[in-house]
């Protein structure tokens, strides 16, 4: 699976892991990963195995943020590789997400 999701034992934390290119092809899977969860679940997007992020992936992150409460959402994006970090930097998404 290119998109895997895991919920912590206490059900409070969702981790979505992306493998390979994070682009429009993952749209459906990414959506399904968070759709059924309450909006107050803590969200982590793990990009350890993501090689590339395009603008539709940024759009997907915005959808997740919207689902998780918009301006009140706290979403962490972790393990971004240097190329992916560059894309987050240009788009200044670190102003909306906790990106490492």
């Amino acid at each position, binding site marked *: 699976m290119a998109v895997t999701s895991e919920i912590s034992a206490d059900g409070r934390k969702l981790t979505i892991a992306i493998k390979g290119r994070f682009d429009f092809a993952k749209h459906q899977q990414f959506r399904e990963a968070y759709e059924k969860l309450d909006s107050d679940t803590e969200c982590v997007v793990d990009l350890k195995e993501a090689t590339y992020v395009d*603008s539709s992936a*940024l*759009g997907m992150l915005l959808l997740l943020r919207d689902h998780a409460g918009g301006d009140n959402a706290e979403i962490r994006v972790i393990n971004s590789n240097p190329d992916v970090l560059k894309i987050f930097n240009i*788009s200044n998404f670190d*102003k*909306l997400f906790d990106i490492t």
Partner: protein
Amino acid sequence: MNTSLTVLIAEDSSADRLLLSSIVQLQGHNVLLAANGAEAVALFARERPQLVLMDAVMPVMDGFEAARQIKALAGEVLVPIIFLTSLNQADALARSLEVGGDDVLSKPYNPMLLAAKITVMDRMRRLQETVLQQRDQIARHNDYLLNEQRVAKAVFDRVAHAGCLSAPNISYLQSPYALFNGDLLLAAYTPTGDTHLLLADFTGHGLPAAIGAMPLAEVFYSMTAKGYGLAEMLREMNAKLQGILPVDMFCCATVLCVSAQRRSVEVWNGGMPDGYLQARATGQRRALTSQHLPLGILRAEAFDHSTRVWPMLPGDQLFLLTDGVIDTSGPDEQLFGVERLQQVLDANRQPHMLIAEVEQALHDFQGHSRDDVSMVQITSQLPQPLDVPVMPYSDSDQCSPLDWSASFEFRGATLQRFNPLPYLLQLLMEVHGLRARGAVIHAVLSELYSNALEHGVLGLDSRLKRDARGFARYYQLRNERLAALRSGFVRVRVQVEPVPRGGRLLLQVDDSGEGFDVATVLSRPLDLNRLSGRGVSLVRQLCPAAQWSADGRSATVEFSWEALA
């Protein structure tokens, strides 16, 4: 067998013809019979059978020639031809494939084998039919889509027009259908003769990407024409896009104001790749880096419209590009990248060749050209045309207000976030006699207002702007002091009065600042290339009769006009 086919049998031996015909009919197909190649071709042309069994050696016209003609008649439709032969198998196969045959059946005929071959050939035939149908369907859809795009683009071109992209100091590269790649390039003159330029990149492709471009272009052109600054325009664009775009769509954009008169460029970059500002004199290149989130994401309260201002002398150049340039992928999925781009910029000798050189580099890197990148280059150039497009007024001269005055005082918090200039200009343009001078009046009023605000109320020293670093420092201080502003005022007094055969406008701008040493400043020669003190010298250039009170807290300019006979 599930489908019944019409099978043409071309065989000169009547015994074989009978045998084959009965085998094929037993399988549930209809048969057409021909005794030589010429008959076969004629029958094919008339009856269009779906499959042909063709003897190789026949009188009048042999099977090879008949096969060639039948294939030509069939065109794109696959009509399988199975050669019947007693010839050496390999040789027959080779020759029959050469003329377009699809299979070979050797004598003596085995009914089971023939049935199997017909089934396989029919499967191939139907596969080809499906492919052709789908191809035609896709072609139809594509035509339809292209036509829709053409119509949409024609509508868009009416709304967005080309602005001043054709100005001699602007060059650009953009696919005619860039709009449907989500790229948008707009340029327009402000009423004071500065140039506003926007290069934007919507997420996604096709119609969704193009839809957001329409309101963006409308805001850009109307607010630029009315004299709004980048900050107000950006707020409006962001709010509009945020309201209409779905959550996962946004618009990366670089918006800038090139002012040759003020020797500066004001830049806002949200999510676009670095643009480059190249100084002609020093050859120095400055990256214009993205400082903000793209447009259409943040709600108005959170949106940050703060811009950066850099010195830009006449002859200096700006180069902007969309991410397609950097993301062009070459061999091994490698990306063109910023470093390769910078090498092209370094190697550039003739600025007007730059875009062509980048295009060539992308072509060399990728092996073919791509049509989804946009690039634009603008050179700061004096003099900018100072003629405003005359705003169409439907009223006659009767309504022009000729005898009135008004005084405005803008204080503290208002100075922080409100730009009164578009309103003041609009008010003044109600006076018909002033319309022809609109550009100059706007330029002078803008300068007087920003002098009063920056040097007066905010107490900024224009000497800071002597060099490029100070320039940046100046605008940083300006933002800081403006954000902390609690008191102070700028007063604008407008007086319009009729005089014999015409009228006169007096503009007086006062501020609450410390004032300045008027005598010293005015005694300086008018140095056009100095970065500092642009305000006063620009006002004096445009309006020689400008006057300052001795304490430097009040400036007055006068414009008069003669009524048209």
